[in-house]
């Protein structure tokens, strides 16, 4: 489709509304730059300026209040074709509620042009003050003048990394200013200063737009950053996530007659989750079913680290463990985190580091110096010892997984073997 971007020169705004000029100069600028209507994706916000859609021959996308910049950003991610132009309309109200979206689009230097219709108040909802209303400007919610300073959206966008930012007065012919913004590679934003005849003019009689803008400290001008425009450069992707979980072949035997629940617990950074993972995989390599669940504080680097494991000759349908059949405790953090359920054990086995005082429990207590091979290896030590003591899994199945996972060099396996003999 070629031809005019705009359907009619009769736009649906109140008489004298600055939005009229912006709509006409925006479409005029795009025509002058040689765009066809369907080369343009116009994303509009909720607000008076947003009712322009029906008058445009471009693609039009009309979403939520304040979100047009984010929506336009999303479109830009999916638009490989440089020939298409994404134009986002937003008001000072939309800028206020959606400030984050503008900062983000500027920071990433997305290929969109944002046109801020700054009439210094929420026009559509009755002339209330927005975050861009200048100090002293009268609105329907501040008849004596806005007591707050308004955001300088140009400064903010510039600081965030926008390729091109400009502020113009919404009077006369602003087509050239628009053309300049559209002609950028990367994020551009034009803030057009205007006044809403229905509220702004009425509440601020005899004040001139030019003077209001000047007094508010907003300079007219352009600001640029020489930063690269967004390109979608993604790193290497995995073609198949399932290849990252290699099939574990059955190579070993086990001595388990019924399901067994097991808790391994120690301190963060002591290899508890890794040891649990190795044990679970070793169980699978012995033809058992297994589940493994980790828990640790949100600050993963300190405090306890607990792993709950179920192994069973039949499918484990429910993996929750309240009181385990066996517990392996390698540090004080681990003991503290599991003390209550250890106390509730009425049988089974508690393997606990000999530095710790075992709680009252119905479990058989086995004290070993698991930490003698270094705190970081206490958990894997305890796992291997459990295999030896109970015969549930062959120790060699655990060693095999350690080997397969490339951990053999990182664990003092000889030292652990020796410690187990002691």
């Amino acid at each position: 489709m070629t031809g005019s971007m705009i359907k009619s020169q009769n736009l649906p705004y109140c008489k004298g509304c600055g939005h009229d000029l912006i709509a006409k100069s925006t479409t005029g600028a795009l025509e002058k730059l040689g765009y066809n209507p369907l080369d343009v994706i116009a994303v509009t916000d909720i607000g008076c300026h947003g009712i322009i859609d029906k008058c445009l021959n471009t693609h039009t996308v009309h979403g939520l209040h304040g979100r047009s910049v984010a929506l336009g950003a999303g479109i830009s991610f999916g638009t490989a074709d440089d020939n298409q132009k994404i134009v986002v309309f937003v008001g000072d109200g939309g800028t206020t509620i959606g400030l984050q979206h503008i900062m983000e689009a500027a920071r990433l230097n997305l290929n969109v042009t944002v046109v801020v219709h700054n009439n210094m108040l929420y026009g559509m909802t009755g002339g209330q003050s927005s975050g861009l209303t200048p100090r002293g400007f009268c609105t329907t919610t501040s008849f004596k003048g806005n007591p707050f300073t308004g955001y300088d959206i140009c400064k903010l966008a510039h600081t965030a990394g926008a390729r091109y930012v400009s502020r113009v007065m919404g009077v006369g012919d602003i087509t050239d200013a628009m053309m300049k913004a559209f002609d950028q590679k990367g994020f551009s934003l034009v803030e057009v200063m205007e006044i809403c005849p229905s509220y702004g003019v009425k509440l601020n009689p005899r004040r001139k737009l030019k003077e209001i803008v000047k007094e508010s400290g907003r300079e007219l001008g352009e600001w640029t950053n020489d930063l690269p425009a967004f390109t979608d450069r993604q790193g290497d992707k995995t073609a198949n996530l399932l290849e990252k979980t290699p099939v574990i072949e059955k190579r070993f035997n086990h001595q388990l007659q019924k399901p067994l629940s097991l808790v391994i617990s120690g301190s963060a950074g002591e290899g508890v989750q890794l040891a649990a993972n190795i044990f679970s995989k070793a169980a699978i390599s012995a033809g058992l079913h297994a589940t493994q669940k980790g828990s640790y504080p949100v600050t993963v680097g300190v405090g306890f680290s607990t792993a709950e494991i179920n192994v069973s000759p039949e499918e484990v349908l429910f993996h929750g463990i309240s009181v385990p059949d066996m517990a392996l405790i390698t540090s004080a953090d681990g003991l503290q985190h599991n003390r209550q359920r250890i106390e509730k054990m009425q049988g089974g086995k508690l393997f606990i580091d000999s530095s710790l005082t075992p709680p009252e429990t119905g479990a058989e207590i086995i004290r070993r110096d698991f930490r003698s091979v270094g705190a970081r290896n206490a958990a894997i030590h305890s796992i291997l010892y459990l295999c030896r003591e109970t015969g549930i899994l062959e120790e060699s199945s655990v060693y095999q997984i350690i080997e397969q996972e490339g951990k053999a060099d990182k664990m003092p396996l000889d030292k652990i073997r020796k410690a187990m003999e002691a």
Partner: protein
Amino acid sequence: MHEKNSNDQVLIDGSRLIIESLARAGADAFIGYPITPANLLYLYGSQRMDMMLPAPDEITTVQWMAGLSATGKLPVTATSFPGFALMSESVNMAHMMELPMVIVLVQRLGPATGTATCGAQGDMLLLNGVLSGGHPIPVLGTSSFEDCWTLSARALEIAVTQRTPVILLTSKEEVMTQKSFDIGSLGTISKVDRKWYDKDCCDYKPYKPTGLVPEFLPVTQTTHQVRLTASTHDQDGILQHSSPEALANTRRLEEKIRASMKEKYLFYQLDHQEGAEKLVTAYGISAAAAREAVRKLRRDGQKVSLFIPGTLLPLPPVYLEILSGYKKVVIAEENMNNQLGSLLYGQQMPENIHFVGSLGKMISPEEIQKEVMS
């Protein structure tokens, strides 16, 4: 219950299966904002999807997704209640614009921030009312690794064929626990067949339905004008206050979801035992306990059936029929208020409907067994 017999055993979590399934079905972008317990999905999404974008918040997340969707991409995200709450206006927008996307909602203990690392099943009622007007949004719930595989792909299929955001409902324990699993048992997932408007003539109307769903065209083509809007609109995508054509359009949104979810996308498992008068009903994480409870009860010689709904919302009418076939029904759901039950029966819970709930911990098989036998 079967002894395992395949060699393809791996140790895997549900997050991995969900993302791989979505990717195979055609999802090609993951928009992420971190939140426990959805972080594994984010990790895998960033590794697997062609495009990964880190959003600065969850409102932006869905806005970016909607923008991508308007260009023909099929975006996915994963979140939990705090993030989903921020998304809700944008989910309404995407539904109104008819833009496909999948949101994996991993439930955790609320209200508010609650406990990030504790599972829960507390968001069904929220989802039931998340669209203003009470319009339904498709929600599928995973109750096993098999579901993570099959229903994730189905969620994307629904998003595409019905042109709507779809919620895949799961919870912390389902997507973070690793379990041995026979990946050899997984079926093939083929890419969702996506048909776009393909006529060259100039009468494309973005919201003119064929059947109940309009044909899609991305804003990146330059043959036909596309108008997308979240405001009440006519078939041309032009804002209307409440014209008959525009209201018919809004009505159609409701109808297309109800019509497709009640049959075409009806997923559930009914493990009926001959002669059983008792039924255990559960979905999500509580389905694990329910399966174990039923296994044990049957071993003890009890006759009991098991019902696991996969299509959660809009609630398929057939579920009431299924439950009415039993003298005693036990619903297990990890919350205090029997959300599934109240969706089925409203304020008047029939006396034969029993509830096993829980707060801050998984429901155990024993609790369900006890209620079945009480």
